[in-house]
């Protein structure tokens, strides 16, 4: 099949992502990048309900069930004077059952997304602290692999529409610059948009405060 202009643009973006991550790997070294890769894969698996995500939701729901059961008189029924009380146990079970699970079907996506994002941030923070030395070339290669994984994780968000809208043959320089700026903006805004949709717009002021605190902390002396 003949590659189209969009395939070429997508390949260029992929190469750019690989290049940036390879450079980071080259600077940071192999072991940190390896750790980052493991956490990236775990984060991705957690974000998918058909992989680890469903299991994570079940664990959360079971923990919630056990806490409610204990607080709702289940523990008292088990250790009642004269042996466990079946009636009280059943009523404790029924009370918990009536409340239903903490995360219902279709509600877990936002939580899993936040978990994945948290793991990705943690991966970058932890990888930066690994000081064990190794070959810089190995770090470069591992960094490129991380770039590939990141591109794979975010591919549904990038491949939904053609990267650059089709431009007429007669488009002038201004039109081309405008299209590229618009596309760059779309790519930049997309993560904020997911975050806003997933957790609510209150995240924007929180992000502003976090950025300011981070910038203030980075002034030494």
């Amino acid at each position, binding site marked *: 099949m003949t590659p189209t202009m969009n395939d070429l643009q997508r390949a260029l973006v992929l190469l750019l992502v690989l290049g940036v991550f390879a450079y980071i790997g080259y600077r940071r070294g192999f072991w940190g990048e390896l750790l980052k890769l493991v956490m990236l894969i775990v984060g991705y698996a957690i974000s998918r309900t058909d992989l680890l995500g469903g299991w994570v939701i079940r664990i959360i729901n079971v923990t919630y069930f056990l806490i409610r059961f204990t607080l709702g008189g289940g523990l008292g029924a088990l250790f009642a004077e004269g042996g466990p009380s079946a009636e009280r146990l059943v009523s404790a079970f029924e009370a918990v059952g009536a409340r239903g699970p903490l995360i219902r079907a279709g509600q877990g996506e936002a939580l899993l997304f936040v978990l994945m994002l948290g793991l990705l941030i943690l991966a970058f923070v932890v990888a930066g602290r690994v000081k064990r030395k190794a070959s810089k070339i190995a770090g470069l290669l591992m960094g490129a692999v991380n770039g590939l994984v990141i591109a794979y994780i975010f591919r549904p968000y990038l491949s939904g529409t053609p990267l650059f809208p089709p431009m007429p043959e007669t488009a002038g320089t201004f039109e081309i610059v405008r299209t590229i*700026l618009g596309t760059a903006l779309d790519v930049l805004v997309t993560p904020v948009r997911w975050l806003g949709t997933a957790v609510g717009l209150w995240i*924007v002021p929180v992000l502003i405060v976090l950025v300011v605190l981070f910038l*203030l902390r980075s002034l030494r002396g």
Partner: protein
Amino acid sequence: MGPIEVLWFAVVLFFIFVALVRGYPRELGVTTVIFAALFLIHFFLGRYFDALLRPLLNVLDISPTARGLEHFKATFYSVVFLLIVFSGYAGQTFTFQGKERKGTDGLMLNLLVGLLNGYLVAGTLWYFQHAFNYPIADFKGPDGRPLFFTMPLSPLATQLVKILPPAVVPDILWGGLLMLMLLARVRR
């Protein structure tokens, strides 16, 4: 011209370039001035501007159209905001003390502060347009095409409007951030 979000993004890029040249300790001073401007505009102008404008129009015996009033308000708010922001760049700047990080770390911090300042300034100017029904879109060239940006808003712009700084941040937080910056500046 194109959609408003492209114009907005071009302004953000401009601020990023400025931050790359000036460095983040200087740019944090500008961030402080922007927080002050946002707090003043929201807290004082947002509450008292209409109450002050009405008697003034009566005294001057001017009765503008509704659209004319929107033009005036959007221009006034934008000019006041830009004048305050400009004061952060001109003359004695409000630089933060401390050793600036060099290399990749410094570059990333410069990018981050440029992005923050660009988002705050360009986002606030856009918000003033949005709050007064885009008066600047009335200006058209000789060929009838808009001079600054095209209307109606694109789907992306409709979503971006929801995350413009004054739309999502309560005015008291601007005051809180201003206090935080001043404390950090004094502590060093």
